């Protein structure tokens, strides 16, 4: 059944994604880390759908759709920012400082 191991793998992947977001300054790599976190969650859903029915897989389907939309818009934003600032280093953006 492999539910426990699958959840453990998912937890590790998710944490690596979080660590990636914290570690990197390049906005595109941070995006990739977010995708990694989304996939870790998908893995959880699929693992649990074995026990609880097909709804989990339906959710994964929706997550993928949302992730695709998010990637498209997010990367478009990156392009727009890069066009103005010539960089995607998030430390360079601090106009929201209080």
């Amino acid at each position, binding site marked *: 059944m492999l539910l426990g191991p699958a959840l453990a793998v998912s937890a590790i992947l998710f944490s690596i994604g979080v*660590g990636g977001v914290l570690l990197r300054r390049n906005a595109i790599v941070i995006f990739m880390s977010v995708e990694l976190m989304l996939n870790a969650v998908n893995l959880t859903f699929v693992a649990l759908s074995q026990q609880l029915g097909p709804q989990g897989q339906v959710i994964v389907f929706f997550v993928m759709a949302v992730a695709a939309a998010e990637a498209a818009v997010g990367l478009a934003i990156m392009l727009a920012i890069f066009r103005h600032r010539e960089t995607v280093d998030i430390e360079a953006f601090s106009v929201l400082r209080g």
Partner: protein
Amino acid sequence: MTEVVFWSFSGAAIVAAFLCVTRRSPVAAALWLIVTLFSIAALFVVLDAQFIAALQVLVYAGAIMVLFLFVIMLLNLGRGGPSDLRGAWGKLVAAGLGAVLVVELWAVRAVAPADHLQLPPGAMARMSEERGPVGVITDALFREYLIPFEITSMLLLAAIVGAVVLAKRRL
């Protein structure tokens, strides 16, 4: 046999994910991410979700990652330039928080689903054999989740329009 496949792809996914977040070059990171996504697709198959695994390869490893690489290429971030990794403190914080998160997520496992919700063991595998891998989710998708499914199309349309508006130099 299943377990061997599971563990080997799990190991591959974890190693590739780790390399993805630690490689200096964005292109390398993207490629390692593709490896991870493929490994996860394999894990989906092991977990009796063949259709999702196919989607994973098509949408993620195919479409989304191509988009990433395309943007990296557009922005000319392929190689060179200073490392975008944070300093020693940043690494320590990332590693520490990541470790704590693993422990805590592991603890979430204790929250087991209620018994009456649980299917008998092997139910999904049997369903997959009876209806085919796609048939497993079509029933739910086109009955219970029909409206969210249709709304998803609106979401994607909005994303397309938004992406075009944002990325185009002049409208």
